[in-house]
């Protein structure tokens, strides 16, 4: 046993300078810190993209999960406290932009440079036995009797709740909002008949839609969406153009590095990210999982996250669910 240990130590010491000698990025393994739990949407997405990215590098990208805190603040603080050299990526999603106003950490989100893989678009659906066949019927019924139709989405201030609020603002209808702990419980509530309307992402709903347990009324994005054995789900924008003022508020899942990471490292990351996004593996995965791929980096993705941050932060502040005013963090109003 001892001999093996000594031998491997010698080997490591002999090889170490070789690894250091190669100066260009990346010369050693990269760690991706995912701030949400293993097996979740963000985790899956980051694992897929990094697995493809490492094929274009000579090093591995190891994915770890560091959850907890407020809106993933523990994992973000951890990733941000590492050396800003591009060897630590932070796997995150749009929900993390609320960490600031919720007192999880004291920074504006633009300390990160983000790489957006994509996300599954939200849609509005009703239970199979509901009388509403189209989005117009639902909205008009809700307008006639404000707050009479029960609508489920995950907890106050979540992305699906924001989508529901945007539908209300853009169409003038008012629903009786019932919050749930996540998308699965809210869809479950629709099936038990506790609520009539449910807003979640297509990836989360597709099984129930195709099984005929829920009826899709409209996509909350500008375009219609083709779903296998279901046909085309029209965009809710067609009937209510006013929605375009508030929507889309889309998932943005991907990873980030601190904004002050050296140019050279960032360029390599952008390059391999673009290559990975173009692979068939990622494309097939997105199609199978009802994801819309984005591939935005740099200034483009910054614009997306700035908009998300301002929307989330001010909505939470208005709901009284934020502890830190968005103003003190310098987040502009949407």
């Amino acid at each position: 046993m001892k001999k093996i240990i000594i031998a491997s130590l010698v080997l490591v010491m002999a090889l170490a300078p070789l690894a250091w000698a190669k100066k260009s990025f990346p010369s050693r393994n990269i760690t991706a810190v995912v701030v949400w739990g293993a097996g979740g949407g963000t985790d899956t997405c980051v694992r897929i993209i990094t697995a493809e990215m490492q094929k274009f590098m000579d090093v591995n990208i190891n994915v770890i999960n560091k959850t907890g805190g407020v809106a993933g603040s523990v994992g973000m603080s951890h990733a941000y406290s590492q050396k800003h050299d591009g060897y630590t990526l932070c796997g995150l999603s749009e929900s993390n932009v609320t960490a600031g106003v919720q007192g999880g950490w004291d920074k504006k989100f633009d300390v990160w440079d983000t790489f957006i893989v994509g996300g599954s678009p939200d849609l509005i659906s009703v239970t199979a036995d509901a009388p509403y066949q189209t989005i117009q019927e639902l909205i008009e019924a809700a307008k006639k009797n404000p707050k009479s139709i029960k609508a489920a989405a995950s907890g106050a201030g979540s992305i699906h709740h924001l989508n529901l609020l945007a539908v209300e603002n853009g169409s003038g209808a008012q629903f009786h909002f019932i919050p749930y702990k996540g998308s699965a419980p809210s869809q479950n509530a629709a099936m038990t008949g506790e609520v009539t309307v449910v807003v979640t992402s297509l990836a989360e709903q597709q099984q129930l839609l195709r099984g005929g347990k829920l009826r899709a009324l409209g996509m909350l994005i500008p375009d219609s969406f083709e779903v296998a054995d279901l046909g085309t789900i029209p965009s809710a924008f067609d009937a209510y153009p006013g929605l375009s003022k508030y929507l889309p508020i889309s998932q943005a899942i991907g990873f980030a590095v601190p904004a002050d990471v050296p140019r050279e490292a960032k360029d390599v990351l952008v390059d391999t990210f673009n290559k990975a996004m173009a692979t068939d593996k990622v494309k097939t995965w997105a199609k199978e999982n009802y994801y819309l791929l984005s591939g935005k980096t740099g200034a483009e993705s910054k614009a997306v996250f700035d908009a998300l941050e301002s929307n989330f932060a001010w909505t939470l502040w208005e709901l009284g669910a934020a502890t830190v005013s968005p103003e003190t963090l310098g987040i502009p109003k949407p």
Partner: protein
Amino acid sequence: MILLERIGSFFTILLGLASEPLNLAILFGSVVMGILFGAMPGLTSTLGVALLTALTYGMDTSLAMICLLAIYVGGTYGGSYAAILINIPGTAAAAATAMDGYPLACKGEGGRAIGLTTTASAIGTIISMLFVVSISPLISRFALQFTSFEFFLLAFFGILISGTLTSPDLVIKGWIAGLLGLFLACIGRDLLQFYPRFTYGIPDLESGIEVVPVLIGAFGIPQIIGVIKDRFQIGKTQKLQRILPEIGTVLKNIPAIIRSALTGVGIGAVPGIGEDIAGWVSYGTAKNTSKHPETFGKGEIQGVIASETANNACVGGAMIPLLNLGIPGSPPAAMLLGALMLHGVTPGPMITFEHPNFILEVAAILLLASMAMWVAGMLLAKQVVKVLRIPTQVFMPVIAMLCVIGSYSLGLNIFNLYLMLPVGIICYFLTTMGYPIAPLVIGVILGPMADENLRRALMVSEGSFLPVFQRPVSLILFLIIVWTIASQLPWFKRKLSAIKKAVFKQSL
């Protein structure tokens, strides 16, 4: 006819899986790892499944399922080791097992207890597997009877029943401990409106109190303090016993095993609650229907069998809504859902069309996993009992270390250690005053469910409690709760015995 066809293809799949040596190697490896995870305080089957999910990324779907289900089954069973031998349940699911398991170990019958729980766990898993194959759509429909009111009542009942069952003297002490746990569960951001409660501006409290450090602190620390204080050695009285189950005892308990397994399947099928409640409810039923309830809590083998059978039967139960509706029936099942999605399988109503044999495959894997668990358990049990022969001076510091590591390993968060220690010390004093600890932990586990669902139920009904009486399941739950509370009131007890006497006289 269709049933026969299903059984036929079930065995084809089973043989197909079992004839692959790699599958068997992974199966046994994962079961043993699961047992170790379960046995170690703080490492739960949820964590085990979570860690392995990442490793299975490169495997094909059925191999990944073998790996994950085996660790789930093993982890649920493994919790009983620590519960029986050192009175620190390895997982919350085994908390009810400690009630009678530890007294048995103190009597020197630890080996016998483990032998019997191994067999009972395996039978429980197999019975639940039968349900997965045969009538899972029916059970899914039952699960859909649960709306917010039912979830609240069920969670409240879970806390109440564990309080009732664990109190050494006054039942009200158990309820007080349960309410303490319920209070701890209120700390942090509420899940509906995201409002911070009792956080005093401390960021670490925002996400609420974690269950694992409370579990370890509450069970582990009082045990360590107690053993050190009394210089007590459990192992001295340990006799070497046959671990192989006494067929006679198993046969005698078959009705109890089947009843416990049904309880486990039913509770597992209800979304959101899992092995921990199943163990308690089954233990409670066993105690209430027993001819000699006074022996429970003092080393009654039936108590151990009841809770262990039910928590393992829960595994299969939890798979039913997961596979048919895409709703995880328990926390580890939620991890499994994530793992399945990673492999491109989205469980739900469409699964029978998209992956026609998948449910049968899961059932076959469950059967294999329970058999592997039985074999591994039989081999391990004898060795594990030897742990108790280690001198206390060496053993307890090791347990203390494991407690610290277990609390920290969850999210690698140092705050959990600051939480574990005071909780443990408070619980030590509670124990010395005769307050049971288990209801406190169950309160922390089920508290968020009770709190969230009650408030949501009132949102849905716009402040009315009427739906409780209008829905059949909630009415039944409500009546059971009223009965549980009332049966402890002195005047009710007197009335009851008076009625009993009157009825008795009449029938004479």
